[in-house]
């Protein structure tokens, strides 16, 4: 019989450590685990079910998309149009299968999903831009914007994890707003630089200020205001 010397409770014969305090039982005292289990090795009914549904969605979507691609290929060979419309369409459809794959969460960590989405979008842009034989907008416009967007969202995600907030309904919107507040000026800078070769902020300032205010108000309502701010507000605005 194994005991936990810290909790003083008797443990299962097959227990490797105390369930209460994680005190490790000397390996010599642990009996064969599988033989003496009182609960079976459990199957997670929930993940099992959601996996089945996910697989069905991906399978059905891929099948339909591939059929469409085939039809487009045939049409392309028959019509042989001047314009490269079919190439554009096929590129987008193939990419959409990959998007569905990513969004269904087959990859575990959200940061990885975000980075993959960024990479995929960039590759798609490169491909679409390359169809007419010359790279034009994908280098100057798409690449910096996609890189900045991905970077901002990955950082926001990491900071959110670090924050360990319990109330997701409040904090996810706050973090997204703050992320956008940083992202929009950066995008405007890229646009300004490409168009006019200068760095100047106009519309993004308005959006950033309102997003920051919104998050500030929501967070303030959640945390309630500290006493001294309340006190000062009362002092200034009392009637």
């Amino acid at each position, binding site marked *: 019989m194994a005991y936990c010397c810290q909790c*003083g409770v008797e443990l299962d014969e097959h227990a490797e450590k105390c369930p*209460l*305090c994680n005190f490790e039982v000397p390996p010599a005292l642990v009996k064969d685990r599988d033989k003496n289990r009182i609960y*079976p090795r459990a*199957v*997670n*009914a929930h993940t*099992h*079910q959601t996996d089945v549904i996910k697989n069905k969605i991906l399978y059905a979507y891929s099948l339909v998309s591939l059929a469409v691609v085939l039809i487009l290929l045939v049409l392309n060979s028959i019509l042989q149009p001047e314009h490269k419309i079919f190439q554009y369409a096929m590129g987008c459809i193939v990419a959409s299968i990959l998007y569905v794959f990513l969004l269904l969460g087959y990859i575990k960590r959200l940061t990885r999903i975000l980075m993959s989405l960024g990479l995929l979008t960039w590759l798609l842009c490169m491909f679409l831009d390359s169809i007419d034989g010359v790279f034009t907008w994908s280098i100057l416009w798409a690449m910096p914007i996609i890189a900045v967007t991905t970077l901002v969202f990955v950082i926001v995600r990491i900071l959110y994890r670090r924050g360990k907030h319990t109330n997701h309904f409040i904090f996810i919107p706050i973090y997204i707003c703050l992320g956008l507040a940083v992202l929009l000026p950066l995008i405007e800078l890229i646009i300004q630089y490409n168009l006019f070769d200068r760095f100047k902020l106009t519309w993004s300032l308005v959006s950033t200020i309102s997003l920051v205010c919104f998050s500030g108000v929501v967070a303030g309502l959640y945390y309630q205001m500290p006493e001294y701010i309340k006190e000062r507000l009362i002092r200034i605005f009392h009637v």
Partner: protein
Amino acid sequence: MRYKRKKSDSWFKLDNAGKLYPSIASSRVSTTFRITAVLKETVHAGHLQLALDAACKCYPVFNVRLRRGLFWYYFENVNEAPKVLNERYFPCNSIRLRHSHAMPFSLLYYKKRIHLEMSHAISDGAGAMVFFKCILKNYYRLSHHMTPIRKIQLVEGQDEDAFEKYYQPKLPNPRKVSRAFHFPFKLIEKGEYRITTGLFSYDGLKGCAAKYDTSPTKFLLMLLFETIQDYIESSNLSMREITPIIINMPVDLRGYYDSVTVRNFFISLTPQIDVRLGHYTREEILREIDHYLALNLNTKHLSQYIRRNFRNELFWHVRVIPLFIKNAIIPIVYNYYGESSYTTSLSNIGSVKMEAPYDTMIEHLELLPPPSEGNIIKATMISYKDITALSFGSLTEDRTIERLFFRKLREEGLHIKMETNY
């Protein structure tokens, strides 16, 4: 009698307490509790199936399927009993209430254990226990070459909605309780469930309670309050995060009202202490519990709670919302209002007795609470002969509460044997 007139296509409404449960059911809020009988020998699946078939004949009220109406779910009687299953999933996760034609219970076995998992949509612990005893008796008879009991003398009102019977429309509402303290622990994966059971002597427990001049239930309730108080005092939570500790204590109303129903008939009492007022000693906690129960455990106050539970059904504007909209809204409302008003719960089904010769087959009984996202740690207890099983069902990896609680019990001099599913 009554059942004879029932054909296979007869149906009945969900009772008041169970009405919302199919709408809120998910893998983290399964609304399914489990009663386990640990036998002295390995379970024979064939006998168990026959025992269940016979028990379903005795209690046709359980042999039903859940169906969707336009506004509410309802139960439809079926002829064939469900199949017994080898245990595969995490505890309290075997029933998919949202599926079409869901059974409200399932009977599982694993090695020496028989588990009855039942949704609160149809019955509470006491009702399920009546059915479970019938299955166990039949199992004993079959394994000793006796004929199973297929028919029992039906008592009038065994399948009644007792809430409806004792509903008094004119009573005022009971006082609202404030928002309760919640454990800030991280949740585990959806669909998983952690069980930590402690087995100890019932007489030993009574001895411990006697030292404080109280009953075993109140004694354990006191320890649970003290455990949570210790946790709050040792954690560095800000004053804003601390709210009163409120423990949900289900009360079996069959002891207070004249009903023999096997369907839901319980309400939740909510003893509480407010740790913002200062540290409570054991005597002070016991005094709070004693006074609270003395005030509320009488038919006058219980009738008020019954009325509050039942009244919701009568709002016509709630009733006429189509079911699919209810299914979308009710989980949110329930998580916010229903579960947020408790910190945790302690359900005690009491000391269960089986008549001879059936009693010799069973080693001890166990009871598991339904997992709940709003109350991530819940406790239940059940006693059989001299063995009490106290189980914590948890949706978190953090064992602080269980550790503090069982160490306290150990310090009172009880010998505790731990069992877990992880």
